[in-house]
């Protein structure tokens, strides 16, 4: 494991107010998954957009066993700019508030341009976002707090993202919660830029942020090679 990536078990030893971006793979799928781990007192939580209109905040160590791979990276920006954990605690409070307001509001879709939470901190499609992915939820939550992980303009559209998106759409095709109109919009977003979970993880390990796509490439490859070795 590269020195900047840590198995999730080590997050237990982090102090109160710690926050990390995570990368995981659930036992029941082969999709990489992005989320946020944070510690409030003795409680360690995992906040993630699990699927269409399903934002979850779970006890990290109760669900960690459901994942075959679960790592985090030190959040370099917060470590360097917030040595006393002030900002991180406020960020945790924000994450808890946004979870309470958006448990079942955020659709799943690929295109990410900007924060989709309105002034009341609820997901609002009128702001121009149809939905989020697990990765862009992490980015949006941080951007809503003035922390921009990725220089979005530097991210390329890649053809090999299309296949995984088609698989995701086929899964949602079977999901009665997802309207056909929404699936059509997802289809129209097949070729847009994708912020992959491993890239968002690696961006959180960079300082300063926002970082460019090329700054995440090496780290992403190392993270993926660790997954393959599992």
């Amino acid at each position, binding site marked *: 494991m590269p020195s900047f990536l840590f198995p999730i078990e080590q997050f237990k030893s982090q102090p109160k*107010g710690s926050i990390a971006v995570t990368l995981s793979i659930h036992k029941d799928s082969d999709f990489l998954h992005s989320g946020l781990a944070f510690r*409030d*007192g003795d409680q360690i939580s995992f906040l993630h957009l699990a699927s269409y209109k399903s934002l979850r905040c779970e006890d990290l160590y109760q669900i960690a066993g459901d994942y075959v791979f679960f790592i985090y990276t030190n959040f370099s920006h917060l470590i*360097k*700019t*917030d*040595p*006393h954990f*002030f*900002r991180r*605690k*406020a*960020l*945790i*409070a*924000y994450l*808890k*508030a946004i979870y*309470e*307001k958006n448990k079942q509001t955020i659709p799943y879709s690929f295109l990410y341009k900007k924060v989709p*939470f*309105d*002034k*009341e*901190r609820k997901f609002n499609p009128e702001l121009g976002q149809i939905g989020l992915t697990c990765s862009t939820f992490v980015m949006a939550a941080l951007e*809503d*707090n*003035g*922390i*921009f992980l990725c220089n979005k303009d530097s991210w390329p559209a890649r053809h090999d993202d299309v296949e995984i998106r088609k698989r995701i759409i086929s899964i949602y095709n079977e999901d009665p919660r997802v309207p056909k109109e929404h699936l059509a919009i997802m289809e129209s977003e097949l070729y847009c830029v994708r912020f992959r979970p491993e890239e968002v993880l690696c961006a959180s390990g960079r300082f300063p942020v926002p970082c460019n796509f090329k700054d995440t490439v090496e780290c992403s490859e190392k993270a993926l090679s660790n997954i393959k070795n599992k």
Partner: protein
Amino acid sequence: MAYRNNILEPNTSTSPFTDYYFNKSQDLNLSGNNTSNFFKTIVSFGFEPANSFNNCGFAYNVFPLFDNNYFAVVLNKLSINYRLFSANGVFLNKPMWDFAFDPCRTMLSDTENNDSILETRVINVNKITELHSFLIQLKNKDIEEMEITGMKDLFLKVDELIDNNDFLSLDDFIISFISLEFSFQFHISLLASTLKVKNILKKRNIAFQNAIKLGEQIMSTEEVLLTLQGLE
């Protein structure tokens, strides 16, 4: 009706509106639904002795309007004790009164004589009570064991005010928040929670400057500015 128990107390007895003052109240809207905007600034105008209220020598003059709403006149630079009773005899104690009018006082600008600007607004006692109670309870959570819970409550309360488009109350809320001497930590939370509406709020920058001062008591200015990065 107010009863004066002590001769030193200001006269808070009610006086009727005159046409003169009513015409000055450019933004006064008594006919609409007032529930979403309890702190309504009506108008600021120069103090003119010839047209002053009966008891203008005192700091505050309050006129019951409807329900629990009061039309209040505050004279800058005259901070004296006062008592206010509602028409039903409800006594507003000093902390609550200060809570209501501290924001009002800060909105007043000095003039040549340093005492000649009046600000008037409609105050809703229920709203004052609610915000005051909320901030006092929140203050109890501004301790290490409860801070994240408290900050989450702060986020939700700010969201509620934003939800109601109650930006005047939110500005008042910010000033009262500062006057209650919340910690640097809670200032960060307040700044983060109001980030989306920073261009609408007039008092948010005061909270930012106060956060810098508080932060400088516990770390270097450079560290403070780093910590607050993105919350300007």
